[in-house]
């Protein structure tokens, strides 16, 4: 049971990341590869503040969200001047910068040695030590993020974002300040990624910079592409699929000498097949 609960917790963390990233990529059409950076900032804020400064989880998470908000607002201002491939390249650059800072700012992050003993959240004396209670808490945040996604999707703000996605020039001509919209959604998405990072750090209880590399950002991007862009349900399905598929392959009883390689081969082949048959993703409403 614990194994499935563990998968459930990781699903919740990835679902939070997928929902937040899909707001930028799906709703707004901005190909952001910076998500691993914000995920990392959120995780490190919790890790540092809880282990070295005596913060509780919620306080540390709020600081992480604030830090992500400020960083994303500043970076978002710069990013909003770019479009398409350029936006992706610049956002990938941010991811590389943050990874380098996490790896090299040893006095703060402990560099490659990582940070141990990160605590669990507590509310009014109740500690979320058990995996089941942690899963319930993480799931609550997924529901909140899902609701926020749907709310934005149906709001005038969401419609402006979708208009920007379809035709930025036309949207500007209608009087919308697109840079403001781009910057706002990017900041909101980064704050949400910070929450996912906080949960990850607390659950794993140990973090090092390897979990927040650009490759992770690409993995998050794959989740929403497979699940479907601009769809809250697609984000959740994408996260679930990319998490459970490799786990299911572990039970195929492949010969152990080649099991790891075969599992990755099958996993890769399934993704290629999926993109070939359904390029817009399972529940996608938009294609990059």
């Amino acid at each position, binding site marked *: 049971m614990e*194994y499935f609960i563990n998968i459930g917790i990781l699903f919740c963390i990835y679902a939070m990341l997928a929902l937040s990233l899909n707001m930028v990529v799906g709703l707004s059409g901005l190909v952001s590869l910076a998500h691993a950076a914000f995920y990392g900032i959120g995780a490190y804020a919790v890790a540092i503040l809880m282990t070295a400064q005596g913060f509780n989880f919620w306080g540390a998470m709020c600081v992480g969200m604030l830090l992500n908000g400020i960083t994303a607002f500043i970076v978002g201002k710069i990013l909003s001047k770019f479009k398409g491939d350029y936006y992706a390249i610049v956002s990938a650059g941010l991811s590389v910068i943050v990874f380098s800072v996490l790896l090299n700012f040893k006095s703060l992050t402990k560099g490659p040695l990582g940070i141990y003993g990160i605590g669990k959240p507590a509310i009014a004396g109740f500690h979320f030590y058990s995996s089941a209670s942690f899963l319930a808490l993480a799931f609550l945040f997924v529901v909140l993020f899902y609701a926020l996604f749907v709310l934005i999707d149906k709001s005038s703000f969401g419609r402006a974002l979708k208009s920007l996605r379809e035709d930025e020039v036309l949207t500007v001509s209608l009087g919308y300040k697109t840079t403001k919209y781009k910057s706002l959604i990017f900041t909101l998405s980064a704050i949400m990624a910070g929450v996912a990072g906080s949960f990850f750090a607390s659950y794993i209880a140990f973090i*090092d910079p*390897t979990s927040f590399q650009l490759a992770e950002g690409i993995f998050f991007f794959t989740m929403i592409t497979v699940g479907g862009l601009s769809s809250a349900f697609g984000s959740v399905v994408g996260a679930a699929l990319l998490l459970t598929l490799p786990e299911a*392959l572990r*039970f*195929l009883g492949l010969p152990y000498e080649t099991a790891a390689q075969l599992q990755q081969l099958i996993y890769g082949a399934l993704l290629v097949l999926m993109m070939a*048959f359904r390029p817009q993703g399972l529940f996608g409403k938009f294609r990059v």
Partner: protein
Amino acid sequence: MKKLILILSCVLALGACKDEKAPKASAKPVVKIGVIYPMSGDASFLGEAAKNAVNIFFEEFNKKLHKFDYQVIFEDNQNKLAKQATLAQKLINIDKADVLVTVMSNFGAVVSPMAEQNKVMHVAIATDPAVAQGKYNVICSSNPAGEADFLYEQLIKHGAKHIDVVVMNATGSQTMFDFFKKKAEQEKGLKIGQVYHVNPDEKDFRLMLHKIKENQPDYILAFLFAPTIDVFMKQYKDGGLTIPVTGVETFTYLRNKTLSEGMWYVDAAPPTDEYVKKYQIKTGSDTTDYAEYMDFVMQVITFGYEGAKTKDKEKVISFIESQSNQMLTAVGKITTEPDGVLNGQPVLKKIINAEPVVIEE
């Protein structure tokens, strides 16, 4: 769309319904060992070596009389922390593993609290003693503190007064350097000049080597791993430097050892000559790629279970902690420290005719 969902559902269902690898019927009680290693990706050479080591170990072990049967289950963590946690849970709860084996301190650190919580024995190949904290965690270590002390003593013995350091931003090398720095600060007999930090993917050291050449330290301490050390030493030779390079495990995995001809270094409890020969015969490989540490781990586990004559994990660990200094492992004799730290003994080696030769133990 429907076809696609059908295919995916079939894969998921097939995976979920597949019957677990049933242990072979045996009169002896079975000890399940779950090994979590990187089996694919950049660090897959570690997983390959670990598989070889397990096969070689049990090929010999099964010839002897033993009280338990050992079943080893390998899982690939893809070098990812999140995977490590999931796999530990799978091995504990689905496979009902009695022992978990992990490699590298950061991956051991993820499993360590889980082992405590689930009362499962965890043997880690790690350098950080924090991984060994708690009742159920044991680390098989290359003894970084001992190696750092030994390196310091050797530098003083070789008349070093001023050194420059090149250290990779990786857990093992950083831990080693931290121990060395601490020792140097305590003893005050050696001046650490410039410290250059390099990222694991860095490939151009020419500017750094030029600066080192200008500084003229007595030694260059290189805490680098393969394949970076190969690139570093090639550029060192091309740059015409003559300042000797040394460190811990510096040339152990250097493929072209002619680049470090005549240089000495501290090696971390290296594989015994007997083990290296055995490994070469069985696998045809020139390098053991840390296989000796997996052999060390398997020996510790089987030694504990066979010696304690019970599957009670606390008794097994207690037996290991109290008796394992009697073992002769693939890395030679070991020492046991409190709280489950089993250490190999460092040696001094010199590259002579492109071969590492032990010159002091």
